[in-house]
């Protein structure tokens, strides 16, 4: 069977991935550079029996997908920096109420309305700590269209598996780039379905009573079971509680369910890493330039490798340590003031060997930009 090949923007690859994963509800408020995701789903979702709603703002959009998810839908919203800021309160609600949902943030320059039509990767830490209080979160990213598709499917799978919001941290450069996308055939990629309770009507359902494996089966809200959902600390019935034991247990559960499964959640790619003396750590569209440079320098015998992260949160600390500790130097290539660099430094044994190669002027970081930084730290001058 020949695969369907399309020539599309990265944002459309996200749409294809969402539909493949079974997304049937999108609520959003259009914002550059993510608008194509909303635009295309407005056309595509109704054809698949799904629902598209353009809401009055980003807060309403985030709230709408939480509600729709509780009724049993796989849900998505898409935004960029300013909208992502607005969604944070409701993202915290989804963390607390353990509602599976996917939020695509196609990053542009910030803070504030910033640089709407140009690339940046400045929302790395916002994805982790944008909402208040202790919690954990999953954030995935991708540098090319095939991976955008895969990571979007994975985002839906992880959201269902861990009952958590999952952030897709894409960026303008890869979101707007047009390139080849091969749509995987049905069944080729694993799709995790909603875990629903087997309890029939008339039997009490406890929405926050875990099974033996720790997972919480859901019951479509408004169907046969009545239960409560709240952003307050709650007991197994979903009702608010101020009991210190419940509070402590729930907070630990919210953090541990993700932080204890870093290995399962971590996604990455290695390029020329086997004997690399110098390691470029990168992600998203920056990784394209890192891989470009490594490919070119390998031809000249330089032992340069690229560790491309596809999951940012939970931060793959052990992976970074394993891959970077024996390197002469580690250069983190990103389009911000060093947001990921700080975490890489904290992960390795010799943090003074970790450097930043960045670009923050709205232009895609180029292989030459990275090469210049590399030569500086090698003491070879630009």
């Amino acid at each position, binding site marked *: 069977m020949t695969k369907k090949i399309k*020539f599309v923007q990265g944002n459309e690859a996200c749409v294809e991935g969402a539909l493949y994963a079974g997304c049937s509800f999108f609520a959003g408020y259009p914002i550059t550079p993510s608008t194509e995701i909303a635009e295309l789903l407005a056309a595509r979702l109704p054809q698949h029996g799904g629902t598209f709603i353009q809401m009055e703002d980003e807060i309403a959009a985030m709230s709408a997908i939480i509600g729709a998810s509780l009724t049993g839908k796989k849900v998505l919203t898409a935004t960029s920096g300013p909208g992502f800021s607005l969604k944070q309160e409701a993202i915290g609600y989804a963390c607390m109420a353990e509602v599976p949902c996917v939020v695509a943030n196609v990053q542009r320059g910030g803070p504030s309305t910033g640089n709407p*039509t140009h690339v940046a990767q400045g929302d790395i830490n916002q994805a982790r700590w944008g909402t208040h209080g202790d919690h954990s979160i999953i954030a995935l990213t991708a540098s090319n269209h095939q991976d955008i598709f895969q990571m979007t499917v994975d985002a839906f799978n992880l959201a269902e598996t861990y009952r958590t919001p999952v952030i897709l941290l894409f960026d303008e*450069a890869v979101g707007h780039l047009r*390139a*080849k996308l091969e749509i995987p055939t049905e069944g080729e990629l694993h799709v995790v379905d909603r875990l629903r309770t087997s309890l029939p009507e008339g039997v009490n359902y406890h929405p926050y009573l875990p099974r033996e494996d720790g997972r919480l089966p859901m019951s479509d809200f408004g169907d046969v079971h009545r239960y409560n959902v709240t952003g307050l600390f709650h007991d197994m019935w979903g009702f608010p509680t101020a009991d210190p034991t419940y509070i402590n247990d729930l907070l630990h559960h919210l953090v541990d369910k993700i932080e204890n499964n870093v290995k399962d959640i971590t996604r990455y790619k290695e390029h020329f890493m086997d004997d690399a003396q110098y390691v470029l750590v990168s992600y998203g569209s920056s990784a*394209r330039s890192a891989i*470009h440079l490594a*490919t070119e320098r390998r031809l000249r015998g330089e032992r340069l490798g690229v560790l491309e992260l596809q999951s940012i949160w939970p931060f793959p600390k052990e992976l970074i340590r394993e891959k970077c500790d024996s390197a002469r130097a580690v250069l983190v290539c990103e389009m911000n003031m060093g947001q990921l660099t700080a975490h890489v430094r904290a992960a390795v044994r010799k943090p003074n060997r970790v450097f930043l190669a960045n670009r923050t002027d709205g232009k*895609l970081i180029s*292989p030459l930009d990275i090469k210049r930084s590399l030569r500086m730290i090698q003491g070879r001058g630009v």
Partner: protein
Amino acid sequence: MERTRIVFSGSGGQGVITAAIILAEAAVIKEGMEAVQSQSYGAAARGGATRSDIILSNEPINYPGVLQPDILVCLTQSVYTQYAGIIRPGGLLLTDPHFVKPAKEADAYQVSVPIYDMVMEKIGKPIVFNISMLGTLFGIRPLFNPNSLMEVIAERVPKGFVELNEKAFTLGLELGEEYRQDF
């Protein structure tokens, strides 16, 4: 095929972005190549300077920007002034005398082809200018089978306009062939 880096530049409304998408899409969908297309993207729309970068290759393409194009198309004087200097030595620099008065010397095969005048004379509708430009480019340098481009054009335009675009493309192809140079 070697990696080919292309820049189309002009002003908003001339259809350079659409032409770039058609070229790259044909390479991927019809020719089975790798291709990426990106564009400078600002608040300016009609009338502002536009630029689209295309890379064609048989290998995976990572960094999508074009620093030194093998083929550069400039369709306004201002983008000509801005970009003529970035052409790869020995590359192809295509302009149209209706829009651009080219400098005498360029480190490239510089051709000034009256595409616009031909379109107005033979078709009378400037809307297909970009399709004729694509035809002309492929007349001068066939990067792959021109029929692949025509197939993509036919898929993208409304049914009633396929014939018009076919004519514009073929006329461009014939015009370009007069300027073909073997390398």
